[in-house]
Structure formats: C-alpha cells, structure tokens
C-alpha cells in the first residue's frame, strides 16, 4: 500500500503502539482499568443489599404476656429486626428514632393479652423511620405475616378461633418523618451531599495540579507565600462556590420537590459548611499527591464511587455488611446525609446530629494535617 493511501494499517499500528506505551507508563490509569471493575463488583455484589436486614428496633411494651413475648421472639428471629434488649420508655424510643439509633419502635398497649384472648384485635403500633422509604418498605411489608404466624402458633388449641382472618391484631404503621413514603424526600437531601462531594473535591483537586501542569507552581513557590496561606487561599473560594450550589439545590428542593424543612436552616448551613470544608480539604490533599490534572480527576472518581454506594445515598446503609458499614462510616458523605435528612425531615437539633458533625470534623482535621504534611515547600 502506498504511503499516500487513505487507509494505512501501518499508521494505525503506529498509533496503537504509541497508545499502549503511554497507557503502560500511566500507572494510575492502568490501576483504574484493573481496580475499578473489581471495586464495583465487590461493592455491588457484597456490600449493597436493597433488602436490609437486622434493622435496630426498640420495644415499648405495657404488657408482657406470653403472646407479646412470642411476637417479640418472632420479630427477633425473622432477621428483619435487631431488637434491643429490654423495654424502652416512650421518651427514649422517640429520641432513638430521632437520632437514628433505632429504625423501628414497636409499641404494645396495656391489656394486649386480655384483649387478644377476648378477640378484640388489640393494636400493635409500629413506628418506622421512613426518611429512607426503600429501607423500610420491605420490612413493613413482611411484618403482618411474621406476627400472624407467631400468633397462629400461640393461638392453637382452645384459642384457635381467635386466630381470625384478617388478623388477630390490628397492626398500625406510622411512617414517621415521611408518612407518604415519598422517595424524593430521601433522594433530594441526599443529592445535596452527593453533588457537593463531586464538585467541591474535583474543583480543589485540580487547584494545585493545574498550577503544576501549567508551570506556574514553580513561580508561586519562589514567592513568599507559606503553605498554609496557599491552602487557605485555594480552598476558601470553593467553599463559597459550594454554598452557592447548596442554595440552588435547596431552592429546587423547596419549589420543585416540596421537600419539607422541619429543622433549622441555620443548623443545616452550619453542617453544610463543615461538610464542604472537609471535602475541599480532601480535594486539596488529592492535588498535593496527584502529578497531573488527569490523576486528580481519577482520584476524585475513586473517592466518589464508594461515597455514593456506601454512604446510604443510593442503598440503605444498614443493609450493608459490617465491613462496608465501617468503610461507609469513614466517609463524610455518610454523616452529612444523616445530618441533612435529620434536619430537613425529622427536625433534628444540634444535639441529635452532633455525633455526625463530630465525625466530619475529625475527618477534616486528619485530611488537613495530611495536606500540610504532603505540601512540598520545595520542588524536591
């Protein structure tokens, strides 16, 4: 084939060989090609479970007869619930739902045993934290059957007639904080954190690598600016940008999706500020490690993937195995999501989310230390 031909296998092979050589030299891209599929497989295959089991539940029982015990035992053995030992007071149960330590509160009224035997269909009240409807829907769906089977065993013999159809008990379900089970109520506050994670980390990750790639870093380092000054100067503008994004999302949440705002806007903004600060600092740390803008973007992606999968944004946090929950607990997004959902849907106060904010602040501190440690004062 002549050199001037329109289609030259030799030219194509030249390009292919060059591409493969460059790929081999770019270790991070190479690592991504291998690690990303494995990471995705492990996360989706093992960590993600859309039918969460062993959700924490509290019992407030004013009666403690054999039938109540049978119901509790059945719930416990159903695997859907991890029932806290003992009987909680109503106030404690309320608080547990609010701060998220319990997903369900099961209340059994006084005289339950007597009414059951008399066939009066006594009530059992199930209060579920419905801020994440997908996490609770399966459990709530399985609940009537679990109770019926438990009671059918109990109400054998002379009491068999009491095991009536539809049911011997009147199961009342309260979907707290999101009575209609609207998914948007869960997704929109979640998006707030997810969007912030993506944009703020990426923007700051590019901050130093851009200077390095364009050759301006050498000049900057020859000037009398200290590492702390450079870090603050590079981070603060992006905190401002993050706050603009938050405002935009909150306005959409209000006017497009009518997500309720039960708590204090000031608290939400304070929590958001801590979260953005942690993210931009993480992005800055990435940019002290990455050698190019491409690497900075890849690192951001590496971080983003587990963040959306393991934080409870897409899939119920409690549905994940313990190791995945541990990983998820390190991510600031996990704690921020709980805070935002708490404030917006449950009206959480500072006291309810202080643990979450503390976790984000601790993360921030660690990352900022790494960033300052990693920042090279010289070109060495």
């Amino acid at each position, binding site marked *: 084939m002549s050199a001037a031909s329109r289609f030259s296998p030799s030219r194509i092979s030249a390009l292919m060989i060059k591409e493969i050589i460059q790929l081999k030299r770019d270790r991070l891209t190479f690592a991504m090609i291998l690690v990303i599929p494995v990471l995705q497989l492990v996360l989706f295959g093992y960590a993600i479970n859309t039918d969460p089991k062993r959700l924490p539940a509290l019992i407030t029982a004013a009666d403690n007869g054999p039938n109540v015990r049978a119901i509790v035992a059945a719930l416990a053995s159903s695997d859907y619930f991890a029932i806290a030992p003992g009987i909680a007071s109503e106030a404690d149960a309320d608080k547990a739902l609010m701060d998220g330590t319990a997903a369900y509160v099961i209340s059994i009224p006084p005289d339950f045993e007597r009414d059951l035997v008399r066939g009066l269909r006594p009530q059992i009240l199930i209060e579920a934290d419905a801020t994440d409807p997908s996490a609770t829907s399966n459990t709530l769906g399985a609940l009537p059957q679990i109770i019926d089977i438990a009671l059918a065993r109990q109400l054998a013999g002379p009491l068999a007639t009491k095991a009536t159809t539809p049911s011997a008990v009147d199961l009342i379900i309260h979907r707290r904080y999101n009575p209609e089970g609207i998914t948007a109520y869960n997704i929109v506050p979640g998006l707030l954190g997810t969007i912030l994670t993506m944009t703020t980390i990426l923007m700051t990750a590019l901050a130093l690598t851009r200077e*390095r790639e*364009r*050759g*301006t*870093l*050498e*000049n900057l*380092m*020859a*000037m*009398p*600016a*200290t590492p702390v000054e450079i870090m603050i100067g590079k981070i603060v503008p992006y905190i401002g940008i993050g706050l603009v994004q938050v405002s935009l999302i909150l306005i959409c949440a209000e006017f497009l999706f009518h997500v309720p705002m039960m708590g204090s806007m000031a608290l939400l903004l304070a929590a958001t500020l801590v979260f953005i600060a942690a993210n931009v600092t993480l992005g800055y740390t990435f940019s002290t490690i990455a050698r190019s803008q491409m690497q900075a973007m890849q690192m951001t992606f590496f971080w983003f993937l587990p963040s959306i999968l393991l934080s409870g944004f897409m899939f119920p946090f409690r549905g994940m195995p313990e190791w995945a929950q541990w990983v998820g607990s390190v991510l600031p997004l996990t704690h921020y999501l709980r805070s935002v959902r708490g404030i917006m849907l449950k009206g959480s106060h500072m006291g309810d989310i202080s643990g979450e904010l503390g976790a984000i602040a601790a993360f921030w501190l660690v990352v900022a230390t790494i960033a300052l440690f990693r920042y090279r*004062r*010289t*070109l*060495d």
Partner: protein
Amino acid sequence: MADAMAGETVIAISGLTKSFGGKKVVDDVALDVKRGEIVGFLGPNGSGKTTTIRMICGLLKPDSGSGTCLGMDILKDADRIKREVGYMTQRFSFYEDLTIRENLDFVARIYAIDHRKERVRETLERLGLTSRRNQLAGSLSGGWKQRLALAASVMHQPKLLLLDEPTAGVDPLARREFWDEIHRLAADGLTVLVSTHYMDEAERCHRIIYIAYGHIVARGTVAEVIAQSGLSTMIISGGDIIAIANAVRDRPGVEQVAPFGNDLHVVGPDPMVLQQAVDTALAEIGSAAVARPGETSLEDVFIRLMQTARIEDRPPNGPDENGRPA
C-alpha cells in the same frame, strides 16, 4: 562593573551538591557574586544550571553545602530570601488566563507591595503595556511574555535577580532590549545571575561562570576565560572549505574545526603546532587558501570545556519541569 560597588557580597556559596536519583546533578559548586554584578551562568543542557539557581532561591534543598544569599543562610532562611529575590523561570510561569494587569496585581499582593495600584500602573506604563493591560497574558508573544515576566519579577524591588534562560525563543530585538533593561537594573544596584546558552549574551555579562555536568570548569571575565583556555585560532579563507576541514581535522594539535560562512576556524592549544598542522594540510591538498591567526571566540572555549569535562558525569536526563529527576 563600577568598582565603587564592588566588595559587597550577595551570593557566597560553597560545596553546593544536589543529587537526583543517585546522580549528582550539582557537585561541589562554589559561587561568589558581588553587588551590582551581572554574572552569566553558562553550561550545556543538563549541566546543573537550573538546579543551582533553584537551590539559591530555596526551591530545592541542597544535599550538602552551605552559604549565604544576601547575608542570609540559604539552608535556614529560604523564606526570608524569597522576599528579597526575584526569580524568572525558564518557562513562562505567570497565569496565562489572567490579564497582564491581573498578573501584576497578583504579584504585588503576594509581596504586599505598598501603594499597590500605583505600582502596578507604573509597571504597566514602563512596560508600554498600559493599553493592553486587559489582554490575557497567554495571548502575548514570546518577547512580550518575557518582558512581562521580568517586570513582575522585579516589581517588589528585589536585591538579587535570578534569570533562568530568560531569552529562550525570543527574537534578537527583544533580546537586545531585555539586556539593556538588565544593565539598567544592575546600574541601580541590582545583582543579576543569569543562565544562558547564547555566546553574545555571555559577552554582555560582567563575569561568567561555566558549569559542565555539575562542576564549575571556568570562571572570570570573558577575556580571562578565553585567556585561561590557552587556545589559539587560525582562520582559513578561500578554497574548498570542506576539503580543507577534512584534511586538517585529525592532525596533531588540532582540537576544533568549524566552518563560519566562507571561513574555516581551526582551534588548537599550541599556536606553533597549529600553524604547522594548517600549513601541512593546505600543502598536502594543494590548496591556495590563506591562513591567518585569528581571535579565539568564547564559543570555541566553551566547546573545549564541554568536551574536556568528564562525559561520564553527564546525567542521563535532566530534572523535569518540576525539578524532579526524570
């Protein structure tokens, strides 16, 4: 250099050594620069010029060596030195996506320059860039970028100016103007250390230091360096230059043979031996060309210095853009 200003030492460094990946890029370098001097820092690519300059302004930490820059310890006072030193990098390193004025304003703020707006305005005027102040720096030609970089590097009135190959890729007129400006600044007491490849620029320096593969191999004024080399030159004109070059090249006493237009420059260490070699060669090929003694150029000296420096010292690759070994 005006003798009245001599004596005050600006850079006094000795034993400066720096390795990248086990390879000594700068080896036991000593520098001594006086106030108001323009010192040319010469040497082949990868000889350690940039690395040395970066160590002086605190961008790289020396492995060993000690000294002072503007009276401050180069190892301990890097932060204070940075405030008093202007550094112009080899590659344009201001912000291409900022306008000319914004770049100057940025620099002025970083150095906390008094009367900032006034100083930026003055600088723009002196540069002749007032009407183009809102143009993006990236849209400037190479010569203008270089002028902008120089103006930005001296805006905080440094006492020492370090220039790393400042005129690479700049046209002759812009280079001439650039050097005029450097001499004006030096006359006002600014000390300048400038690395370059260009011989004409070396000749514009008060003093030159030649570094090859990490070692300083020559220093002094241009005349001193040429004299130290002990080289003599014969210029042959007329006749078949290429044939003469081939005839004379491998003779004893001949080190360099280089055509310059219609002339041939032949360089060797001993004038008598050189003369003999040239005469024999011309007679051998029966050429009627005329040979006369000529002046040895700085370039001839530098090529000699490069060739005699230990070749095995040459690093396989110079440090990359970020000063890291390749």
